[in-house]
């Protein structure tokens, strides 16, 4: 037992543990895309639109931010309802000329608000039309969308709207996992220099814990 313990907490094995841990973490991290908030909606008092009944649709022209042009991004739409048992589905479409992408969000049940993110890609930094449409089966207890009264740009359009409203939407940039190490480091050598300290600290902790009872 003593020999095994000495081996487990030896310098070479400790270095292996540090390097191995960092290697595993790097593999896990670069396999996962990073989603970063890019542009948030304006903070103001939330107003819930009329419910998204079957066939009811709201549209608004949004400006695709230049930093998200021709890239994958997420657009978050807020749903809300004052009904405790609110539930419903909606189709979300973003169109720019011929380029159009849609998602269907089923069983939306905001309590009292709910943010849903939808993935889009390949849009230019130009105006695009966002359409949110109520699906068959929706009723009076279906959720509406969250808006504010004093927004910027084009206002929301749609039936049932009795005042000028602006959709609350958040934009998120999707950074592909494989790019993370090359985003800020000019080459692999620098990236390794940056990773070495993490491995070193983990190694020191590992080796040190072997002598914890002795000290």
């Amino acid at each position, binding site marked *: 037992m003593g*020999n095994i313990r*000495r*081996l487990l*907490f*030896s*310098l*070479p094995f400790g270095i292996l543990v540090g390097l191995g*841990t*960092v290697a595993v*973490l*790097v593999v896990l*991290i*670069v396999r*996962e895309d*990073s989603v*970063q908030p*890019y542009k948030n909606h304006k903070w103001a008092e939330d107003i819930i639109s009329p419910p998204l009944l079957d066939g009811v649709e709201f549209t608004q022209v949004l400006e695709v931010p230049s*930093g998200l042009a021709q890239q994958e991004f997420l657009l978050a739409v807020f749903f809300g309802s004052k009904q405790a048992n609110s539930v419903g589905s909606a189709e979300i479409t973003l169109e720019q000329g011929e380029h159009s992408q849609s998602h269907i969000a089923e069983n939306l049940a905001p309590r009292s608000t709910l943010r849903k993110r939808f993935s889009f890609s390949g849009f230019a930094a130009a105006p695009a039309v966002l359409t949110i449409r109520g699906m068959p089966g929706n009723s009076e207890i279906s959720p509406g969308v969250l808006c504010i009264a004093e927004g910027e740009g084009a206002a929301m359009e749609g039936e049932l709207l009795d005042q000028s409203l602006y959709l609350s939407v958040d934009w998120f*940039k999707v*950074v592909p996992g494989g790019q*993370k*190490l090359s*985003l*800020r*480091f*000019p080459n692999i050598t*620098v990236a390794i*220099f*940056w*990773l*070495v*300290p*993490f491995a*070193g*600290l*983990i190694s*020191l*902790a*590992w*080796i*040190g*814990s*072997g*002598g*914890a*009872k*002795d*000290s």
Partner: protein
Amino acid sequence: MEMRFGDFAVGVSSSLMTIRLSARFYQLAPWGVLGFFVLKAVVSGLFVVRPWDVPDEVGHFSYIKDLASGKGLPVLHETLLDKAVWDSFVANAPGEPGSNWIAQHPPLYHLLMVPVYGVGSLVSSSFWGPFYAIRIVTAVLFGAGILFLMKVFNEVGLPQTVSLGFGIMISSIPNHTYLAGAVNHDALVFLLGSLVLYYWIRICKSPSDSDILKLGIALGLGGLVKYTFLVVFPPVLAMSLFVIWKRGPGFWKSSASLCVLSLFPIGLWIVRNLFTYGAMLPVDMTGFQSERPLDMSLLQFGRSFPVFSIIAQTYWGLLGWMGDGNLQVRWLQIYSVYQQAYTVPIILILTLNLFYAVRSGTESWRRFLYGADRTFLAIILLFVLNWLDEEYTLYWIMIVVGVPALTWSISDYLFDRKQGKVDRLREIEIGALLVFCFFLTVHILRIYSFTVSSGALQGTFGRYYLPVSGFLMVGCFSYGLKRFPWSGQFILGCGILYGCTEMYIWLHEAIPFFELYG
């Protein structure tokens, strides 16, 4: 076969290389922590964190450049930011330079960086050479602060494994790495805070004249870096003078040296301020005045904002500032899941305190009741005041565990004291906790005054606590860890958790964040 690898005795046994862990390992390992931390902060400062993406960096660098180019000390509300620095800062939103609000700070960090600026100028004709040279030296200052904190933990009697583990934990907090690889005086504040704690503990253990002088120098220098540091002065000076008085002979000489060394530097700065501004410690309050100030009492304030949660979460990591050249502040507040990885170990350490305090109370009913009734009162007070209403769940748990843990462990000490048993190290731990609590109280009152006048929560940055983070650790974490037989493994395990979490945060969140706006 026997071979040498530094001070490690490395042998080959049964064809398997093993290293005999010795006391030398625990003496050398802190230097390893220092080296790895500095390397991490330097590479992050050179390649990951964009220029001007650290709070106030543009002001600090402009301050140093003014001094290095012979323009003298900048004057608050008068001296403008350096034109070349400003042009780089607002690359995407050109305009005329604004005034340098960092001129409000005392000049020690900036003066120390003047020679570094000169060395940096040798490698680059633009200001980028000096800029990155200063980032590198600042990382070394922060690393030295961590090294001294590890010595502090040894001084208060924590096992070397725990000191090493704490060193690794401190080295693996994203905010520390971020602030270390930056042009910012917080690293020097942290180093001097660690030095003050170290020499204060040595004085409390055995007040030698040499340590008294060193404490005076560390306090004096700290006051010349940031006004926040002055908050440490009253409790540390008062407790040090008390210890010197109890020592007996040479009280007047030692106390005079301590007071002169600690107060003279800031005194000179105050005289300069009086001549320049007609005020002792002027600060830029333009961001803290609103036409619609709040009208609320301190109690209402505490019930309305999650103050402790915001301080704690920004201590772990609030990255970013105005590095994209658009004059827009962009923050990356690390997400809740990462905050949990940093906070849960703290909650567990506090739980250890509570466990050992209660266990100590089981020796006798009198002892138990002595701790229990005070703890019960503290909990009642905590909930009657309702200060935790708005706190986030994670930090609510930390406070609700921490308050009884600390109250009971202090009661335990008081009970022993009543019985005539004096534990000098326990007194030091409680003294450190008092320094932290004093700092916290002053800061809460400042946040309250800023918030009321500005109409919104202000001044809650966790980095303000860098001068007292060592005091917090000694005061809050030592009691349970000294009694827990596996404290070394536990804290070193926490070090590994912190290290992995920090790497995840940088690679998965911070690097994409700093690239986000081009």
